[in-house]
């Protein structure tokens, strides 16, 4: 972080900013006013790995003023096949430190806020409350339901994405237009759906889906285009086909339905039958 802390957000763009963002500013859908919207935006990214990496990277490049990262893992050699914010020399370093270094190297004008903690029912509302938009790049179902519920209860837009093998999924949940529980009311039984570590994932699919998520964030901030609201985008890298499925708010949804039963955050590890997450020790 550098200029962001000292440049009043209502001020005109500096000559450096005009030059840096000229390829955005020249487009009528963005312009100087849109670029100032990006500078004023506050976006939280859950995870600084496969999806969160390219999302945060493009947010930083575009000059999104405040980028929050929630991450507590350390960089592992096996991450480097796909996680673009981390490099060989970062192995053993906390991912959130590695990510901040890269984002600030790409663009010193943006403020990177580090949330070096697991996101939990105890801290989710406080963390999310500081941001306009939340981007989900979590790697487990418990966190996905937690972030979904917290965003709905906090009235925040959630830009969701998920990957496995050669497939990706992306959608945008705006409060009142459906949520993750409308799409998948219950998590799969533990162990039934493998993780990327268990089944594998094509590194480049993280870039495809992460870039789609970043694009949806920009559209939300700039209020342009047709967002992925009420639509689930399916990406198949092997056939290189994109499918769009209808997604609707479920009136019987326990969170956003007509008679909600989930009115506060719950124990998501118990809900998903998964063990609680533990912070690993950084080795460098």
């Amino acid at each position, binding site marked *: 972080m550098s200029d962001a802390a000292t440049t009043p957000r209502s001020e005109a763009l500096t000559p450096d900013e005009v030059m840096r963002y000229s390829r955005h500013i020249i487009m009528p859908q963005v312009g100087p006013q849109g670029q100032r919207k990006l500078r004023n935006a506050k976006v939280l990214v859950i*995870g600084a790995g496969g999806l969160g990496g390219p999302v945060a990277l493009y947010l930083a490049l575009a000059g999104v003023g405040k980028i929050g990262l929630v991450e507590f*893992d350390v960089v592992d050699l096996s991450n480097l096949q796909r*996680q673009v914010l981390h490099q060989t020399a970062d192995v053993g370093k906390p991912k959130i430190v590695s990510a901040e270094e890269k984002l600030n190297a790409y663009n010193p004008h943006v403020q990177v806020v580090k949330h070096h903690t697991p996101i939990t029912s105890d801290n989710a509302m406080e963390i999310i409350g500081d941001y306009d938009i939340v981007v989900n*790049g*979590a790697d487990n179902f418990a966190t996905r339901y937690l972030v979904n519920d917290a965003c709905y209860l906090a009235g925040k837009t959630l830009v969701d994405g998920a990957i496995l093998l050669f*497939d990706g*999924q992306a959608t945008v949940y705006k409060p009142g237009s459906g949520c993750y529980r409308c799409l998948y009311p219950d998590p799969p039984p533990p162990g039934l759906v493998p993780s990327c570590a268990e089944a594998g994932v094509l590194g480049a699919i993280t870039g495809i889906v992460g870039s789609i998520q970043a694009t949806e964030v920009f559209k939300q901030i700039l209020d342009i285009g047709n967002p992925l609201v009420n639509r689930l985008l399916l990406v198949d890298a092997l056939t290189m086909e994109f499918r769009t*499925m209808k997604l609707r708010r479920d009136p019987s949804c326990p969170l956003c339905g007509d008679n909600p039963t989930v009115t506060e955050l719950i124990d998501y590890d118990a809900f998903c039958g998964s063990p609680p997450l533990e912070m690993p020790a950084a080795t460098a």
Partner: protein
Amino acid sequence: MPVSVYIPSPFRRITANRENVTVEGDTVGEVLDAVERVFPGFANLVYDADHRVPTHINVYLNNTEIHDLDGIDTKVSDGDQVAVIPALAGGSGESDV
């Protein structure tokens, strides 16, 4: 009538890596059962122990989820596409946020 069933990559280990399988059937349920006859084990992926589609899997007829239609009893037409789409959780690292 022939209906194409789209198989996402997490399920292709059952279908010999085929992304589309064309089978005969008059309803979505008959179509799924027909896939099971060609590729035994498919039903174990898309049905639970009570032979219901679990809530972490969505079945689409063309681009509409079958719960918005008539469930597995939804009639299909020649040329329709059925897609069986599971929830995915991958995104970050190894369950690290």
